[in-house]
């Protein structure tokens, strides 16, 4: 559970504080960006997400590295399951 999942910020949700819509391998989910308040992400940025929260901003290249790591570790499917589980069936 220490592995983090890379996601691309699609949009920030102005109606809710610190919420963003992200995309992970074609799946869109809401995540909380409250841990990035000191350097808020913008649409198009890549972030690492962990238990529904964006933990840190990363470069697109590092995001691709991280996707490969998850795949190599055999964790990609578990990661997708986790992402699909966020938000009780949102979007």
């Amino acid at each position, binding site marked *: 559970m220490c592995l983090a999942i890379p996601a691309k910020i699609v949009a920030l949700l102005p109606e809710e504080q610190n919420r963003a819509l992200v995309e992970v391998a074609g799946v869109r989910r809401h995540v909380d960006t409250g841990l990035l308040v000191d350097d808020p992400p913008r649409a198009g940025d890549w972030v690492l997400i962990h238990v529904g929260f964006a933990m840190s901003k*990363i*470069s697109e290249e590092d995001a691709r590295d991280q996707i490969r*790591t998850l795949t190599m570790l055999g964790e990609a499917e578990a990661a997708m399951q986790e992402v699909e589980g966020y938000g009780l069936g949102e979007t």
Partner: protein
Amino acid sequence: MKFVDEFREPGVIAKATEEISRLADPARHYRFMEVCGGHTHAIYRFGLKDLLPSNIELVHGPGCPVCVLPMGRIDDGLSMAQDPQVIFTAFGDMMRVPGTQGSPLEHQARGMDVRIVYSPTDALKLAQKNPGKHVMFFAIGFETTAPSTALTLMRAKELGISNFSVFSNHVTIIPAIRAILDSPDMRIDAFIGPGHVSTVIGCRPYEWIARNEGKPIVVSGFEPVDVLQSIIMILQQLKAGEAKVENQYKRVVPWEGSRAALRAMSDVFELRPYFEWRGMGFISQSALRLRSAYAQWDAEQRFQVPGVRVTDPKAAQCGEVLKGVLKPAQCKLFAKECTPEHPIGALMVSSEGSCAAYYNYEYRKAGALTSIGAPV
């Protein structure tokens, strides 16, 4: 060697292993501890042990949240959910971890309202959707996860959601490393530092390990190349007679960590005077409880907590394996009574537990099972 073809750059791996062989002193036996369970998983998954000279031993550390949780805490959490008004929520990792009367999943089969959540915010939403019920979130994890629980509690307070509580089992990594270094039966030459915990706490909290204990520590990423490069960095330090904190995982880990995450943690949590760790006993100031400002959302304040202390099954040697004194296969129950399908101890449950990792990769590879290298 099964997974070598999955490596991004086999050439880089070969160069890295050559460099390791060059740096390692054949007259010395090295013991490096990988603190994080994610690294343990990666090391077994990629068969990295086979790529290292035989005098470099990797020792598995305590960084697997479900593995270090004493069985009594699982029983305590489940006892709160005996009340039919209570919905028990936890991450999937927790669901198959055995308590004395069975795992959360087994309690679910007996009628308890047990639900898997992927985020603490899901548990909070569940509370909002079920105003007639009380939703208790069984929180586990190191500093990687604690800030998310903290922000969820801050939101619960802001929104005045009163039918939600957190049973905090959050632990902190530094006291665990200290306990290992203080343990008389443990000799570690250097540490492969945790990756994602360090995105939160940064690299400074490790400085005492280098300064006071004289041991190198290199914060590492999770790819095979990352782990091998971290081992090179450790060997270079040892060869030069140095002990420093280095950051191999700079692309993700900032030296200073995440101020916002640390702020959220300290706003909501305070250190417990002591906390019991499975196999390691009571460790001072090693776990987090909710501050009094959050008492209303603290499951330990809202419910009667039996505070049971359960001794692990006598034959199981989880403690010795957790501390790195025994290898998984040296436990009497390994692959006999205790398997991933029927785990006796939590180390066999989580993919980050060294027993499960060893069973799925090493043990199967050894031909004990036919599905060699099958993804799990």
